[in-house]
Structure formats: C-alpha cells, structure tokens
C-alpha cells in the first residue's frame, strides 16, 4: 500500500512574523521557512506505518514555487521514498490545493492519505475535508492515534468532549493533530540518501486542474502591541477593573 502525504512550506514556527509596511501581506523575504509542523507529523506517521510493515511506499507532495522542493527534500531526509512537486507561481488557496491533490491521488492510487489538520500560516483547517469531499473518501480529522487493520483504519480523534474513535474504510484521508507523534530528527545517512531520491515536478495544466480564485486577501495587520500591566492591591480592585475597565466580566 502506498501512503501519500501532503506537506506545505510555511514560515518556520520559531521565526518572527513581520507584516509588510503596506499591510498587503506577511513579509516572507529571507525569512526562515520550514515544513508546516502538522505536515511534519503526517510525514512521521507515514514513515512509522512503513517501518511497521503496513505500507510499501511513502510519497510526499508539495504545491508551490520551486523553493518548496526544500520541504520535499526534508521529508525525503526523514525517510519518505519519493516526492512530487506541483509547480505553481504562488501558494494557492485551500480549494485549489484540494483539487490538485485529488488529481495526484487519482494518478497515484494511494491506500491512505495523511496530511496536517491545518497550516500554521493561514490556519484554515479545511484542505483535508475538501479533499475528502472531492474524492468521496472517508475522513478522520484531528487524529491523535492511527492503527491500520486490514482494509480499515482506526483513527482516534481529539474532539471537544474528549476522544472519539472511528473506523474508516480505506482508502481514507487522515489529518493529524499535535499529539499524534513526535517527529524524528533527520539522520545524516538519510540526508545523504535524500538527494538521490526521485522528485518529479508536475503542473496544474498537466494535472488538468484550473486554478480559480475564490477569495481575495484584503489586508494583513499585526496584532496590537500589548501595553504594560499594572499591579492591583486587592482582589476586589481586580474584579472591579475586569468589570468596568476591561469589561470582560
């Protein structure tokens, strides 16, 4: 069985996010970029399933300009087998991503698709769900545990009320939550091997997908700066301020 993992190139979670002076977007010029942390968890889970003998091949897909090959190489260095880059001029919005991925899935016929529940840049949390609808496949989102049993995947999900366990018919789509696993560090031999692993480049045209713009980014503003705190003398004063100044009670 093949596992297909989607990874997104995003700003490194350690990097400080700057907003462009004209408020049109986040300034990514010379900012450190990395695999989206949830996607990295997806890669780790796929590799673990392969190591456990449940999968034969792990394919990593990323969509974006050539630079996103770095993130594919990182996933290959973690242990994935081959990569596919769908070359686009920019980073398309979720529905376009889902349509592109759907076509890659039709071509590759994986038994399982694992992806991050959301990307830390746009925080949409929708691509996996859209992909599930487009492919008419079952979905297990926010997974904190995944077990494969025959032609079924048992997925434990982190929901508001606690944990929910689903049994999905394969092929299925799983999106990862933070606690699914702790991704490994790339090993030196795997970094060396990664540069020789195949990385195919395709395009929306080749995949027969027309990219459509469904939404427009109007403006980006940084969060307001936190002003200095004050010391209160009593609980009563705190309650009074919360009621009358902060108006949160």
């Amino acid at each position, binding site marked *: 069985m093949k596992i297909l993992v989607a990874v997104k190139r995003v700003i490194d979670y*350690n990097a400080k996010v700057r907003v462009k002076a004209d408020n049109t977007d986040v300034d990514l*010029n*010379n900012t*450190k970029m990395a695999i989206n942390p949830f996607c990295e968890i997806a890669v780790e889970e796929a590799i673990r399933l392969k190591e456990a003998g449940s999968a034969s091949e792990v394919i990593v897909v990323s969509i974006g300009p050539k630079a996103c090959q770095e993130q594919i*190489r*990182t996933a290959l*260095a973690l242990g994935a087998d081959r990569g596919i880059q769908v070359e686009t001029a920019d980073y398309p919005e979720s529905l376009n991503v889902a349509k592109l991925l759907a076509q890659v899935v039709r071509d590759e016929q994986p038994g399982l698709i694992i992806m991050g529940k959301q990307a830390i840049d746009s925080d949409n949390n929708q691509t996996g769900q859209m992909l599930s609808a487009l492919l008419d496949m079952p979905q297990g989102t926010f997974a904190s545990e995944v077990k494969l049993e025959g032609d079924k995947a048992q997925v434990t999900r982190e929901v508001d009320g606690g944990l929910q366990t689903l049994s999905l018919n394969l092929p299925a789509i799983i999106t990862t939550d933070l606690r699914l696993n702790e991704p490994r*560090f*790339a*090993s*030196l*031999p*795997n*970094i*060396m091997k990664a*540069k020789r692993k195949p990385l195919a480049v395709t395009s929306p045209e080749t995949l027969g997908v027309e990219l459509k713009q469904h939404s427009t980014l109007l403006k980006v503003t940084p969060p307001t700066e936190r002003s*200095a705190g004050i010391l209160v003398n009593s609980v009563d004063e705190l309650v009074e301020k919360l009621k009358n100044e902060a108006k949160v009670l």
Partner: protein
Amino acid sequence: MSTYTPPLQDANFVLDQLIGIDQLCEELQLEDINTELASVIIEEAGKLASEVLAPLNAVGDANGATVANGQVTETAGFADAYEQFIANGWATLTGPEQFGGQNLPNVLGTAVNELWHSSNMAFALCPMLSQGAVEALIAHGSDALKEQYLPPLISGEWTGTMNLTEPNAGSDLAAVAAKAVPSGDHYKISGQKIFITWGDHQMTSNVVHLVLARLPDAPAGVKGISLFIVPKYRLDEQGQPSELNDVSCISLEHKMGIHGSPTCVMSFGDNDGAVGYLVGEKNKGLRYMFTMMNHARQTVGLQGLSISERAYQQALQYSQERFQGTHRDGSKIAIIEHPDVRRMLMAMKAGNEAMRALAFSAAADIDRAHNGDDSAKKRVELYTPIVKGWMTELAQELTSLNIQVHGGMGFIEETGAAQHYRDARILPIYEGTTGIQALDLIGRKTLFDKGEALKGLHSDIEETINALKASDNQSLSGFTAQLENALQRATEAGNWILDNTAEDPRLMGNVSFDNLMMMGYLVGGWLMARSALLASQQDSDNSAYSSAFLEGKIATASFYAEHYLPRVNQHADTVLTGLKSTFSLDIEQLQGA
C-alpha cells in the same frame, strides 16, 4: 538556563561565500557536496544540538559524572542523548566510506562540531576524542586493527580516548613511564594515566584507549615511546566485547568546569596486565601523536568559538529582558540600550564571527592539505597555533563579558553565565597551553622557514586591502585604512622577530605570546574585512542572505576594526620592545621583601 539557536545564516555565509565550499568540494572530487547540502546538514544537526544536547548542558554541570568500583557513571540523560546522536549517524560525518563513514569534508565536520560544542561542550568532548582515535588508527594502524576497531568507532557504537599524560609527563611527554611488555601476539600494558577525558562511561559497549607506553628495550626520551590500542573489554573471536580488560578508572578529577565530562585517572595492569596491541611501528608513538596535532588543536580552538557563541546568545537574550533606568516618558530601559552593554555585545558578536571565519578557513585548508595541496599544508601549519592559542584566549574575554552583561546575576551560579566562563577556562590549557602554541608559532612556524609562510599570509592580506580599496562601497573605507595600518605594524614586528630572535631563545620566548595574539587579531580582522567585502558585493534584492544580515556583516567588521584591530598595534609595540624586562628580576627578587 540559556537556550541555544544554531547560527545557521553565518555558518552558511562563511562556507558558501568566504570558503567557497562548492569549489572546494570540486577540488576534493566530492560529488554532490555543495552549499545546499551543507546547509541542510547544519540545520538538521542544529535541531539535535538545540533540542536535545543544549538542555543537558546545565544538567551536566550540576550533576557531574561519578565513579565506583573502577567504573564511571555519566550524567543522567547523557546516554539517551548519545544514543540519539549515533542513531542519527552524526559520529560518521567525516569518516571514510570504507569503514562506514559519510566521507564529508573536514570543513563541514568543523561547522557541525561548532554546534555540538556550543550546545554541550562536556558531552561533545566524547565524540571528539573518538574522532582523534579514529584518525590515529587510519593514519598508523595495521589493516587488521582498522577492520576490527574503525567501524564501531566511526559509527559511535564504541568511543575512543587518548591516554598520554602521566603525573610526571604533562607538556613534556618524553617523561612517559607506562610500560608495555611483549606477550605472544599482544603486549601487556601497565601504568597510570591522568587527565583522561571520557576515560570511562556506560554509554557504549566498549571504550577503546590509545595509550602511550615504553617497550622494555626502548631508548630513553621521546624516541622510545610507542602507541598501543587497549580496549576496555577484550574482543572475542567475533570481534565482540567480552571479558573486562585490566583497565579501570581509579578516580575522577574535581574540576572548575566541564563537569559533565569525566576526567579520569586510569590505571592499566593492576592485576594480570592490560592486553594491548601496537599501533604502527615501535618507538614512533610520539610522532604519530603529532600527525593528529593540527586537527586536535584546531578542534580545541573551535571550542573557544562554540562556547563564546553560546555566551553571546545568553547575553543578548538577558540584555533585552533586564530593565534598568527610565526614559523621560516613564517607560523602562532594557539594558541593551545602554552603550556599554551594546559595546560588550558587539565585542562578542565581532569576536565570534572572526573566530568562525578563521576556524572554518583553517579547516578547509586541512581538507586541501590532505588532498596534496602543499601551500595549504603550510598555511594549516601556520594557522593551527593561532586557532588554538588566540581563539581560546579570546574565549576567556568573551565568556567573561557575558557575566559582565548579567551584572550581579552573572556571578550567581543559577543564572548559568558562570558555567560558560568556567567551562572555557580549560581551553587555553589542554591540547598544548597558550605558551606552547606561542612557541610553536614563533619557532617552528615562523623562524624555521625564515618567515616564508608568514609572508605568504601577509601578501594575501595585502591582496584583500587592494580589493577593498578598489571597491566603491563607502562603508568599507574606514576599516580598509585600519587593516592596512595593522598589517604594516604586524609586518614590522614579524621582521623584527626574524632578524633578532633566531639566535636568542629567551628573547623569542619573551615576545612569543604577544606575537601570537597579534597574529590572531590580524587574521581575524583580515577575514572580517573579506567577509564584509563579499557581503557588499551581494545583490541585496537577489541574495540568499537577508539585507539585515549583509548590512550586519559590514557593520560588525567595522566594529572589529575599531575595537580589535588596535590590539594588533599594541601587541606589535610590545614585540618590538623585546619585552627585555621579563627576566630582569631573579627568583629571590620575585619573592619580594
């Protein structure tokens, strides 16, 4: 506890721009090794360094290794970290492919080693010593010894040690007294060795000791010392560790720093004699040790950079969190806004970047020298005492500045600034003291070839000065003049040394330290100037480096020129006096009254 962030951008800049690693790897015929791969390797190593090793640094300081019944137990947590370190293949980086190594260039190994030593120097000493043992075996071991010992040492499955020093044989190894008596296909080794770094631990299934000892018929002095390999556990017929050899750690030293690194008193042959095997030929042990000297000394120099980088990061963080003083509008002033604190931070940053440029350049020249490049070999010889001597001395100042930035809190152990200062203090001592480096530089590396290598370096610096003058970038003009002046003074002092000290060992000794420090500040200034020139030539719209980084490079070079280059002149002045008063008092007068 201080966190550690690998300085990826500067490491990449030095490798890519200053060294030209793409071209270097072509010269070395290493296919597919390039800037891009190097940056991935450094980044991935950086993750292990910052997330696994760095948090254990303070743990090792507070809970050093312990010894009981001849066996050392390392700091809790180190064994798991070591397991991860070798499972991820980091020990194999520069080892030859034939024995399981990745055959990557020394310069890349150096860039990665910087991260290990920054994150946890006490821990990193263990793989560092293994690497020394590997090199000794590659250069001098028989095929049989190589096949048996190299694969597990390169993978890190076993670790290696260097057993040189004895109570009466420190800097003077001619006094080595440990004995080796032939016994069938092996030797029985006996004697006591001290200051043995990572001489024992429980992290691996074997520890391989390289031991200097004398054969019964050996001539006296340095020409009678042989090198032996003595495993902690003897090997069975399958080459697997079996029964315990007659080797034990009889005590651990109580040190002022690097507490996480067990410094052992080792005893060989207390019972039936420790089984050992001769490495190479009889009586050539000391010569073999010298073949590894350049690399070992450069690695200690690198530790000077590593620990200063960690200290800088801590100072930088604290200076933004600590508020002292009030602005007119009532808001508090972070101490980083105070000029004297800013001066200290810049001194650390400029010193570190100069050291990184020098350490990586010297490491690249080791690669070229191994590849048969004779001029690089001469340059390595010249650089080695500067890397070891100057960088470890500068580390004393920079780790002390970190304490100063912290003020009173710096003097409090819990802050963690003191650890870096204490850890750094061994660096100008082990692997040849600063005094030894200074004599090596002035004697073997300057007078011996009548200043040929030195003049080669001077002319390279001259070339950079000319390139700086030809540049139309205004921001470079200030330090061009300062570098030109420093070179002129250093040349004057160098010529004085060549003319006056060749026949006068005492005069040579008097000025050797100032000559060493002068050369360090000069070479550092030259490499910072070259870096700034390269930064100024980048097309900022289309560069792999941010404009903030490129501007920072030029500004940091300017600070170096203002702050450190005048020290070249000062040391040159001292050299030119001959420091003739050094022996003007006899010992009784020194005792005063």
